[in-house]
């Protein structure tokens, strides 16, 4: 076991907004291997990769390259040290030719101008050497996704990359293109390159990688030899719970149906299917959880429920208390008693520069309760804000403080307070505790349970298994836009079992899934 080519020792990354993305992560890359980093979204894969490529600097810990401590302050530092990266969103200029993209920033010169013939020759040479067929004179905007990826790989190789980081390279490829990519990667490996392969598709990881590092909740497990672990074991390590939260939740009979989604299918642009035949109901006084690896239809579903429908509904219905809400605007939907805690509190959930009080009243200022006519009743607003700040234990200097100055947890408490304060009939909570410290998360969980006990129907969408298994009365799993499982007793479901459904390895029969729809 010779020394590692690249090693990350106890690397911790805390972002300025207080989110701890990586905690004492250890990662060791051997020369000439294909090494997978797997984990769910939010597990810290991309942060780890950004630190490897100099896009972020670690808050603590060190990075060693060939046994030597290095500081990667920018992508240029990483490139200079032979680390290349193929981003998930390609870093290409669409109107440029392949050759122009290849040489950007290191253009061969003839006199004052660029030596275009030389650029084409360099591209052809690299293309032949690594058996990655591209047309140097084609415009990038006319290339297929698979071709663009080849250009990206060649670009990194042209800049002398010996270590190649691929961020979810197969997410955008067809199965045939994926096969081709794997052949190319094996060839690169044979030529002495080392590859870091980031993915959450376990079949692919098993097919191509030598070793595998599993990330979960910002921490890393030791690396395994891929041959030594089964897909099931990997999935258990990926989604397993570490701290078990327990809440005293009394059993309740569910009441009447509030939200009903029936046979709902949604088409995106270019005819892609975002959701296929999704059906479930949420009744008064119950929490229905939707689990799944991110990007399996949760976002379009929530958008459809909250009046931001993207794409075309091609079948089915979405009703709240019997009223169709698919084509209703946001205010109309809220009038039906629907509240929404959005996933992204910075962009959607709060207005960062506005005060806590202004944020708190933003869903009800138009109702007339806070003063009618031209002016708002400042005293009423202040009293409302002060009582909510107290009830939700928001740590702040007062209702007038800009919300953007609060920590993530306290900001989220304000959002939750606002959405709960209108006594909704239906609450849609999307990743309500993401990036929030444990204390605040538990507080928010208790508030959600309180709301449920008061008879509110809650739809909880979360990638956090811990949260979803503990809070949900009923549980659905989404995979590739379809419901693949429905559980009536989520607390009795093992994480491992759930993981198999989330990763599309197992799927229940339609009859079982159909039970999610109540009258």
């Amino acid at each position, binding site marked *: 076991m010779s020394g590692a080519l690249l090693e990350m020792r106890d690397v911790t990354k805390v972002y300025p907004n207080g989110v701890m993305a990586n905690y004492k992560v250890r990662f060791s890359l051997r020369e000439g291997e294909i090494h997978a980093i797997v984990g769910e979204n939010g597990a810290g894969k991309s942060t780890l990769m950004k630190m490897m490529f100099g896009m972020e600097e670690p808050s603590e810990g060190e990075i060693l390259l060939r046994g030597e401590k290095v500081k990667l302050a920018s992508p240029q530092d990483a*490139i200079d040290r032979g680390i290349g990266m193929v981003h998930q969103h390609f870093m290409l200029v669409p*109107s*440029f030719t392949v050759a122009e993209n290849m040489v*950007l920033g290191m253009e061969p010169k003839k006199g004052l101008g660029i030596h*275009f013939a030389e650029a084409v020759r360099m591209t052809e040479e690299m293309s032949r050497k690594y058996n990655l067929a591209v047309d140097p004179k084609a415009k990038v905007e006319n290339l297929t996704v698979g071709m663009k990826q080849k250009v990206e790989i060649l670009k990194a190789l042209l800049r002398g990359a010996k270590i190649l980081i691929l961020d979810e390279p197969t997410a955008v490829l067809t199965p045939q293109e994926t096969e081709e990519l794997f052949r190319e990667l094996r060839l690169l490996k044979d030529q002495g390159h080392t590859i870091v392969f980031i993915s959450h598709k376990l079949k692919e990881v098993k097919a191509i990688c030598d070793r595998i590092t599993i990330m979960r909740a910002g921490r890393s497990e030791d690396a395994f030899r891929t041959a030594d672990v089964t897909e099931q074991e990997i999935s258990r390590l990926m989604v397993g719970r570490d701290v078990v939260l327990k809440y005293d939740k009394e059993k309740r009979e569910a009441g009447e149906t509030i939200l009903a989604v029936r046979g709902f299918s949604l088409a995106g642009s*270019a005819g892609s299917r975002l959701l296929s035949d999704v059906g479930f109901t949420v009744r008064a006084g119950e929490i229905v959880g939707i689990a799944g690896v991110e990007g399996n239809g949760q976002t379009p579903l929530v958008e459809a429920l909250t009046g931001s429908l993207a794409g075309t509904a091609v079948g089915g219905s979405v009703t709240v208390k019997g009223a169709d809400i698919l084509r209703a605007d946001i205010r109309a939907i809220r009038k039906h008693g629907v509240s929404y805690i959005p996933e992204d509190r910075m962009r959607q959930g709060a207005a960062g520069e506005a005060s806590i009080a202004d944020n708190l009243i933003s869903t009800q200022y138009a109702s007339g309760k806070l003063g009618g006519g031209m002016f708002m009743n400042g005293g009423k607003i202040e009293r409302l804000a002060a009582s909510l700040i107290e009830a939700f234990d928001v740590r702040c200097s007062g209702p007038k403080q800009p919300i953007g100055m609060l920590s993530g947890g306290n900001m989220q408490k304000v959002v939750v307070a606002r959405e709960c304060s209108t006594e909704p009939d239906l609450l849609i909570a999307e990743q309500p505790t993401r990036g929030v410290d444990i204390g605040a998360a538990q507080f928010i969980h208790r508030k959600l349970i309180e709301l449920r006990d008061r008879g509110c129907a809650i739809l909880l969408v979360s990638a956090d298994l811990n949260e979803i298994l503990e809070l949900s009365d009923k549980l659905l799993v989404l995979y590739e836009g379809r419901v693949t499982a429905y559980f009536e007793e989520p607390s009795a479901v093992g994480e491992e079992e759930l993981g198999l459904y989330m990763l599309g390895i197992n799927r229940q029969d339609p009859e079982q899934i159909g039970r999610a729809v109540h009258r």
Partner: protein
Amino acid sequence: MDSLWSVIWSTDFAFSILRVTTPILFAALGALISNRAGIINIGLEGIMLVAALTGVVTSAYTHSAWVGLLCAVLSGVMIAGILAFFTLQFKTHIILGGIAINMFASGGTVFFLYLLSGDKGASSSLQSKVLPNVDIPLLKDVPVLGPILSGHNVLTYASIAAVFAVYYMMKRTPLGLRIRSVGENPHAAQSVGVSVVRTQYTALLLSGLLAGLGGAYMSMGYLSLFTRDMTAGRGWIAIAAESMGRSTTVGTTLTSFLFGAANALANALTVLKIPSELIATFPYAATVIGLLVYAIGESRKRKKAAVKPNEG
């Protein structure tokens, strides 16, 4: 009506198109470079105005038109540098920065004009120099073409040369490639080590240089003195020309000439019995109509692209 045709179908009119287009063309090329770098320089109007005054004042004090030209161009670069410093370093919004430059230029030039010449309207009391006109040997004796193309101010020829220089720079040089990459996908540029801020700095300084040349031409070629607000919206027309020319060198040049022709027409029509106030609106009306036509074309193209299959 006959007299109108006789005005338009004359070599004088064709000559005047070139003469009138020069400042618009300079500024439009400046707008092109900065816009392609993704940072639209709306301070062009102000930069031209400052350069126009600087040229007049320095040429008067040094008794040299060339020193005046140099100082005018440097002042253009300097103002663009100030704009770049505030927008790129301190992240002032480029629109606010540009407005500040324009307002400063409009008031500041009058202030300095008054300070130096004691006149708030024009610099007629300053003995400023004028850049020479150039007769092109051989060409000047060719009928029709000679009177149109020969005998222009040296900066008019420079503006034509600038078209070729900008074309070559944008298409064939590393700087041009970087400017275009920064404007189109700054992340891509950054990921290969191209500094976005430095490239935008360069682009803004170059746009200041070109606008400076345009300003110098206004007061040392087109006219032989500085008058308050003499650029009269040419910087804005240039931005419109660049936009309508779809940010290409060829397109921008053609639309600059189109607007120049509208301007020349307005000048020519003053000999007819049409109210001069109405005529004065002509170049601006042409700009609005031009932009409208362009916008309609663009939205049609977008609609076409939207129904094209297999596009994300």
